[in-house]
């Protein structure tokens, strides 16, 4: 009884489809744009499929915010980040921090797709003593750069690692994904001020702008607009992009560091629950757990997407 009961259906774990899932790997070197995008789309579809099965089986998760961020995660890990299992010990590797740590299942699945964790381990999600607990922990998974979960922590940490990179003249870039509701936390504005004034061009803040938070729309809670103006006034180079468009995301990430010498803030327009018809842009799906039927329906929609 750890989440609202009405959000958790009776699920018979053995009846939840449990697709085979394997390491997908990065976009191959030399791939054309089209090939790259096709690779990422395929990967995102598989990640979404595995994710919903995990959440349903565990009876816990944040499927809405996972589906909104998966295209970003997949593009970063399978395409844009200079980071792979073989680079974990490299101080100059790019860093990625999922500040909206409640989307942990999406991160774990993506990390499996990228070869950082064993796909078989995904089945332990939320199980006793699993390294895959509800929010990512750096002490449990070596690919996790920062333990997150409480909102508003990831961006200051990202500023720190970017600053370290700058001090060392490292080629390292740091990417951090925050929620949009998360930007209500003042700690983020402290960090943005620091990033802007230090002109951390090696920092890229991606905002998963799905316009929903836990209980309501962001604009009905404590609105962020005009968000781009706020970010610019804090010294960011602001880019807006369709957060489900792998091709567009690739280009945006390739532009980091920005020519202006400023940190980049990417407002990634997304939808919570994307692309599932009954979940999309629906606040109820922040942490609702899908029933077996809903899992099947979602898998079906994914297959045809």
């Amino acid at each position, binding site marked *: *009884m*750890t989440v*609202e009961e009405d959000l958790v259906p009776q699920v018979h774990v053995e009846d939840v489809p449990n697709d085979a899932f394997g390491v997908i790997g990065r976009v191959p070197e030399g791939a054309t744009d089209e090939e790259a995008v096709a690779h990422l789309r395929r990967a995102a579809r598989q990640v979404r499929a595995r994710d919903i099965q995990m959440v349903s089986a*565990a009876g*816990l998760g944040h499927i809405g915010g996972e589906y909104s961020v998966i295209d970003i995660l997949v593009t970063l890990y399978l395409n844009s980040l200079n980071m792979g299992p073989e680079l974990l010990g490299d101080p100059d590797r790019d860093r990625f921090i999922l500040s909206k*740590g409640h989307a942990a299942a999406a991160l774990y699945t993506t990390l499996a797709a990228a070869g950082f964790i064993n796909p078989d381990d995904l089945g332990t999600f*939320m*199980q*006793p*003593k*699993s*390294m*895959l*607990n*509800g*929010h990512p*922990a750096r002490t449990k998974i070596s690919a996790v750069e920062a*333990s*997150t*979960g*409480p*909102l*508003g922590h990831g961006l200051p940490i990202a500023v720190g690692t970017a600053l370290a990179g700058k001090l060392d003249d490292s080629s390292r870039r740091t990417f951090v994904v925050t929620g949009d*509701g*998360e930007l*209500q*936390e*003042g700690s983020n504005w402290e960090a943005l001020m620091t990033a802007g004034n230090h002109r951390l061009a090696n920092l890229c803040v991606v905002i998963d702008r799905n316009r929903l*938070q*836990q*209980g*309501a729309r*962001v604009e009905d*809670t*404590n609105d962020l607009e005009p968000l781009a103006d706020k970010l610019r006034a804090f010294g960011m180079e602001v880019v807006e992009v369709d957060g489900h468009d792998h091709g567009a995301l690739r280009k945006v990430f390739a532009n980091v560091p920005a020519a202006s010498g400023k940190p980049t803030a990417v407002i990634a327009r997304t939808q919570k629950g994307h692309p599932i018809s009954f979940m999309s842009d629906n606040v109820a799906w922040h942490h609702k757990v899908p029933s077996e039927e809903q899992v099947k329906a979602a898998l079906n929609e994914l297959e045809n997407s």
Partner: protein
Amino acid sequence: MTTAPEVALSDCRDAWVDALIELGREDERIVAVVNDSVGSSKLNKFQDAFPDRVVNVGIAEQDMVGVGAGLANGGKVPFVSAAACFLTARAMEQIKVDAAYSQHHMVLVGQSPGMAYGELGPTHHSIEDLAWLRAIPGLTVIVPADPTETAQAVRWAAQHDGPVFIRVSRMGVPDVSPDGYEFQPGKAVTLRDGSDVTLIATGTVVSRALDAADALAEIGIDARVLNMPTIAPIDSEAIESAARETGGIVTVEEALTAGLGGAVSEVVVQRHPVPMRLVGVTDFAPTGTVQWLLDHFGVSRDGIAAAAREIVASRRTAAEW
């Protein structure tokens, strides 16, 4: 193993919101302040009844507590309600300065405390809150054990002219309050008399202490059980009597043992030193459900009973010398 009879378990958030709605009807000054936590605080019913009296500042706990203090200055009686982990850790200085040092009439409601968030992990567990908040002068800290006590604590806090923190549990708990119970701040409640050892428990795990007392009775140990709903100020008299009359104390809490355990230890060493065992959380938790974790840390019928047996055994050995 005999099967335990089915016991009805309640989510104390229901009692909390029902009490708040009643209070809201009686007193226009009552408002709720939240951090995107209407649902997780079960405040939807309150919001339906009083749409203008919910202030949702979004995900911003420092602002939330500061705004609460300002509402108090402005003549309101704010109930500031958020997940206990974020309310306490994120707004600690606001709790110290804006609530406690300022002695504002405001109520801080820590939702889903302890390890209620189970598998969501240590970032979402509020195991430190009791140790942290009892170290803030002038703040009353209440940990209700069941719906009855929750409702009464909420009601008491609404009229107490000073800052109060109340832990409201979501983990299902059975009723433990005696018939006709009336919550008294700073007072322990004897749930079961006994002379061999005292189990002092608080909140969600009072029922586990009662279960342990049953287990101890089966092996001839007569355990007193105290419910300690107020952690600060603590009931020194009840603790001293327990020490004198039963010669040993086990504390039981869904929190780090520096919480209730620490508070009781400090009284015991200064008033009447006797052997104690502190049962509670001792580290950041591994992944697991709250029930699994409570058992993991020994905050269980067996774990509590074993702690009590250790005390009784050590005393017997000492007596044999």
